[in-house]
Each structure stands twice: as C-alpha cells, then as structure tokens.
C-alpha cells in the first residue's frame, strides 16, 4: 500500500491508502474525492482527472507520455507539473505522493 494525499482546491485534504498497481485516478474515484471526474473511465480520453503533482514528487511520477500530453491540451490551467491522474500508476516508490486538484475541477 502507498499513501496518497489529494488536496482539493478549497484546501480539503484526503489521505488515501492505495494498492500498488491501481491508478491515482481510481483511488480518488473510489473514495469520492471531489474534482476527479474521470468521465472516460481511465482511457486517457477526457482530461477530467487532471491534477498538479507536488513539486517534490514530479521526478518520481515521471513525464507524461505523448498521448497524455495531447489530452492535457483539453485540460484547463495546465502547469508544468500537470498530469492526468489516470496515467499515474501507484508503486511503493510513490508512498507519500501529494497531488492537488485544479480550481476548474474543484
């Protein structure tokens, strides 16, 4: 298990124990974290699970793949640390990961 912290735009903090192999999006949806809608269900096809990865965790989560970059074009308020949470897979190395949810999804 790895602990993931989701911080909503209004500051509300959601700490979730996530199983390895699941995605950051799935854990948010399963625990009703508001602002992660995942309209397409995790197919990297909608950009409604957009999050900002905490600067300390950007290296650990890695760079978006080209398909994810393309889909980020449809997200709003995109920053250099923007990711689609359906494309971040939980590993032991991500224990403690912090992501923030953009205002437009809050």
């Amino acid at each position, binding site marked *: 298990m790895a602990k993931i912290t989701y911080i909503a735009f209004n500051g509300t903090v959601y700490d979730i124990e996530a199983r390895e192999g699941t995605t950051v999006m799935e854990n948010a949806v399963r625990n009703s974290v508001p602002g992660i809608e995942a309209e397409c269900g995790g197919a990297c096809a909608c950009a409604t699970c957009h999050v900002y990865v905490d600067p300390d965790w950007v290296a650990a989560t890695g760079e978006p793949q080209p398909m994810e970059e393309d889909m980020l*074009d449809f997200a*709003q308020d995109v920053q250099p640390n923007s990711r689609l949470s359906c494309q971040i897979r939980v590993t032991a190395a991500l224990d403690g990961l912090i992501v923030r949810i953009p205002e437009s999804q809050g």
Partner: protein
Amino acid sequence: MQATSEGLNHAGLFMFTEVQRSIMSEIIETDVVIIGAGPVGLFAVFELGLLDIRCHLIDILDKPGGQCAELYPEKPIYDIPGFPIITGQGLTDNLLAQAKPFAPTFHLGEMVAGIERLEDNRFRVVTDNDKAFIAKAIVIAAGGGSFQPKRPPVPGIDAYEGKSVHYSVRKMEAFRDHDILIVGGGDSALDWTLNLQPLARSVTLMHRRDAFRAAPDSVNKMRALAEAGQLKLVFGQVTGLEGDDGHMTHAVIVDNDNQEHRLPATRMLPFFGLTMKLGPIAEWGLNLHENLIKVDTEKFETSEPGIFSIGDINWYPGKLKLILSGFHEAALMAQAASRVVNPDKKVLFQYTTSSTSLQKKLGVA
C-alpha cells in the same frame, strides 16, 4: 429553443406556446424517439425492431456511437460479452450493422430541447434545431448527458459568450474584419485558423505548447502563415477578457515565460474539446437520483409512463454503468415499450436462432 421553467405544465413536462408550435415546419410521426445514439441507443433499435417498432434517434454529436465514437474510438473495450477485445468504433460499427435491418433514422447534431405529453398520451419532442416529432414512447439513452464544448476557466467569460466568445463557427461572415483569438491545438483550432485568416483583420492562434495534434498539413500551412507574419502564434493561456457589455476588446494572456500581455481581440474561439453535461434532461419533470433518471428494473420506465431510460443515464439500486448492463436494459425496455406502442398486440417471446418470423425481420430468412 431552450426549455424554461415558465414552460412547465402541472406534470412537469415542457409545454410550447402557439408561436413556438407554428415556427416548427414538418412533424415526424414515429413509434419511438430514442434520445442518444450511443451503443445502448443503437441496441435499443435492434430490440425494438424485433418487436416491429420503428425508431428515430436524436444525438447532439455529428455521428452515432456516443462516447465510444467520440471519446475512445481507437481504444479497446474488454468487457463486451463475446468480444474479448473490440474498439469503441468497432463496437459502434457492429451495432450499426446489427440495427440496419430496422432502418432507424438518425437526426445528428441536434439536441432535444423539450418533451410534452399530448392529449392522446403520445409525446411531442422538439430539438434545438426546431425539428418536431410525435412518438408513442420515448427512450432516453443519453449516457453521460449531452456533449458540450468545454469552457475555459476565464473569469467573467460568460458575459462574452454568444457575443464575442464562440465555441463553434456557424457563419464565417460573423468573423469578418475582426481581431480573432483562437485557442487550442487540435484540428478544430487549426482548421478555423486557416479558414478565418483570409477574412479576419488579424488572427492569433494560442496554444499551451509548441506541439499540435492537428493534421500535419494544417500545421505546416499555419506555420507558413506565421512565418510570413500573416498570423500570430503564441504559446500560453488566456487569463482574462476585457470589454464592455459582452463586446470584447482585449484578451489578457500569460505566455510560457510567465509574461502578461494584452492582446487586441474582438472575437475568441476556444477549442478545448467536449465535456458531458446533463443538459435539459433535468428540466423534463422526471424523478432523478443524483442527476440520473430513476427507473424500475422490470420495464426501465421513468416516473412518466411511456418514457423509458436505459444505459448510463439511468439509476436503480445496484446499477452498474457498463455497456452490457445497457444492452440488458434495452431488451427488457423493449418488451414494456411494445405494450405502450402496440397495446393490443400480444408479445410472443422468441429466439432469433429459431424464429422464422424474427429471421424475416432481420432479412436472413
């Protein structure tokens, strides 16, 4: 035409004034109107067709297939019974082929604006394109709602929408001699950049990064125009709009070096793809459960007799938002709808493998 609360009758269904009625030209009479041409709406055509019920389908997208065709045409689906793997478009194509013997009529690029029950218990359905239908039953298979353009989170943008900010181009002339700001990096953004550039006073294309998802030919043409100084290419995001009474004069933009600029712009076209909104369904007076339409699990009928709802848009205890659940719901709904459409006809339960009469309908016997 938009449904408004003033238009609701006592049953909660939308009513039309005589003026609204008179501007609608032809009226299409049919057995069933299906709202939504996604996988579940398409399979409903098949199940209703086996019971000799004819359908018209209305969908806001310009093609059938719903989310399967719009969001993930190339992506594999693994949980369709009998198909270990099939793409969204593949499933759509198969469902269209399966529905073909029943000759459904598609009304694409239109959204249902209102539903009204008539005195003879049939329904009148009108679209935002002023098309009118009279149907004996309605099937709402609208999935996640209607696809609508995503709005950029620019403060105060709503005041400019429809006047200076547009999400599609209906008439190019409305953009002549304007300073146009186009935002996005896909085919819509690139196509309109190229199409509007000759008649605009100026065109600025803004995208968040120097990479475009559009057809390479369009990207090359756009870059050539930018190099020739005939359009401006900016990498950044819009943060504010300036103007009066909905008439934009400038856009405030922040470029990728975090510099703020004021860009003269009297028209803005944001192209950030589509998102799903429930839309006017919430105004049709049906009982809802967290924005989903409540149905029973025998007939998949809503709180209004004769209006059925199947697929992702409905809710009942234990509901699973799976395509296969929608298929099951379509089959049961069809049995119930048959009793509404043809109350005097006895429904015989038959199998397509053995029934000659069903096979004749399918054109295989």
